[in-house]
């Protein structure tokens, strides 16, 4: 049982927190700009590399540099929006999604070109877990990741629920036409959306790198689970995305727990398929996400 908590539940929570942060950006873009942004994975990757570069320059801890990364990444992402998404404001979703494919390829090659394909690590060496009650093993970095992710999610909640721009974002996600008729500056809201999404993407990328390592494909590798999290939680619903991220992360890790007998329930080779299977199931049976109805 303790193995279950140590090796399945806690890793699931860590991974789930990372997915959740990524999914917030995906779901906001989906809700407000009305398209699935395939470049979001590469934005996370970019966040990790920016932090890595600053660590080389300053030697500071990645979490201390995270706010700086957020600012830089936000500026970059707003620039990308102006150059690559703004021309498609009135285009059908298909066109914008394909444009985001294009942007995905572009960011990835820039990352590979600038930093090389070689694997990098934030912090060399390993970190042994702290042992609680003689059995519960939690690594300090995991505590740090989960707590920071929770704090960031609270910040997102606060922004969306209590600030003028946050409410405007939700309003625009509800109805872009009415938002315009209400006098909401939609371009400003779009900028705010990219900033919030980029900040969370930066956090997701940095946490993922902090937990494992930095590589040019890291963001793309978690992109589909992130989409799955956003869909499971209900597109356009940041709170749902958070819950969806945790759910997908935990389920992925639990799928290979020995629920029946000694062997893993599902061959780990199929682990990557778990999130897609959940996502497809949700799309079929509850297309509006698991948390239909009142979301907050």
């Amino acid at each position, binding site marked *: 049982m303790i193995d279950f908590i140590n090796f399945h539940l806690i890793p699931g929570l860590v991974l789930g927190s990372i997915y959740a942060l990524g999914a917030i950006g995906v779901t906001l873009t989906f809700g407000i700009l009305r398209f699935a942004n395939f470049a979001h994975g590469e934005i996370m990757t970019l966040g990790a590399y920016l932090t890595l570069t600053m660590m080389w320059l300053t030697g500071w801890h990645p979490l201390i540099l995270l706010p700086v990364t957020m600012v830089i990444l936000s500026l970059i992402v707003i620039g990308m929006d102006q150059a690559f998404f703004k021309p498609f404001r009135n285009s059908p979703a298909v066109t914008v999604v394909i444009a985001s494919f294009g942007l995905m390829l572009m960011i990835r090659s820039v990352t590979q070109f600038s930093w090389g394909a070689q694997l990098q690590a934030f912090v060399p060496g390993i970190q042994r877990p702290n042992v609680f009650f003689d059995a519960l093993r939690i690594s300090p970095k995991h505590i740090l990741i989960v707590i920071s992710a929770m704090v960031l999610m609270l910040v997102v909640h606060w922004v969306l629920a209590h600030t003028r721009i946050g*409410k405007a974002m*939700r*309003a625009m996600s*509800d109805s872009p*036409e*009415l938002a315009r*008729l209400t006098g*909401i500056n*939609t371009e400003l809201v779009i900028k705010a959306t990219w900033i919030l999404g980029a900040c969370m993407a930066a956090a997701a990328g940095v946490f993922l790198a902090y937990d494992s390592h930095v590589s040019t494909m890291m963001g793309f590798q978690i992109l589909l689970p992130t989409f799955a999290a956003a869909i499971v939680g209900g597109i356009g619903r940041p709170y749902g995305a958070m819950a969806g991220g945790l759910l997908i992360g935990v389920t992925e890790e639990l799928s290979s727990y020995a629920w029946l007998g000694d062997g893993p329930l599902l061959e780990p080779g199929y682990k990557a398929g778990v999130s897609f299977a959940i996502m497809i199931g949700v799309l079929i049976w509850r297309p509006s996400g698991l948390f239909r109805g009142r979301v907050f």
Partner: protein
Amino acid sequence: MAILELENIHGGYGQTEILHDISMRVEPGEIVVIIGPNGAGKSTAMKSVFGLLNLTSGRILLDDVDITNTPPEKVVRQGVCYVPQTGNIFPNLSVHENLEMGAYVRQDDFSGRLDEIYELFPPLVEKRNLPAGTLSGGQRQMVAMGKALMLDPKILLLDEPSAGLSPKYRGEIFKVVRDINEAGTPILMVEQNAKQALGIADRAYILVDGKNRLDDTGKNLLANKEVAEMFLGGGKTEVKKPAVRKARGTPKT
């Protein structure tokens, strides 16, 4: 001096012209109603004020200032508020947040105005923290109007505020419209329920096929024989109505 004036406007969506030479004006303190058969361009005329369509000629003046083809977010800032027929609230935002969004362009403290709105629509007070999408049709219409009134607009545009409401709520909405007007806000309103609408209207325009057909005071039009035949008649119109509803269901007419 008119608050709002449409001068000989022509235009429509994309290439298709729907409005062929429409003129109308709203004087301070007036309720002006637009009625007409389906497809006459009533809603389109109203949307033209909001820069939502492509005007090829004519001009629109707000307080003698030309606002032709100004985008909606700017028109709002000039003090014109518009309540569309459908999709006029943010369903996932609470009632209170919907009202706050109504005041989005205001930089000053608007808590006083909020209290006034709740006074105008008492049923909203206890629902203030519920998502607006969970409210009944009539209450949603109140939220929509309340949201529009948050700016204390120079003029309020209403697109069929009574559509789809039960007769009881319909009466209530018309009462609210009169209350708003009595508090000093001129209103331009499109309505299907011509009888009730003309009853509260100071003046009304009748549009047919994108052109002005008649205009007069509400009282005179109610007495007008042609108008009575077209909109106020007995069984004839009642039979027509379902057909009219259905046609209205097609997107964006």
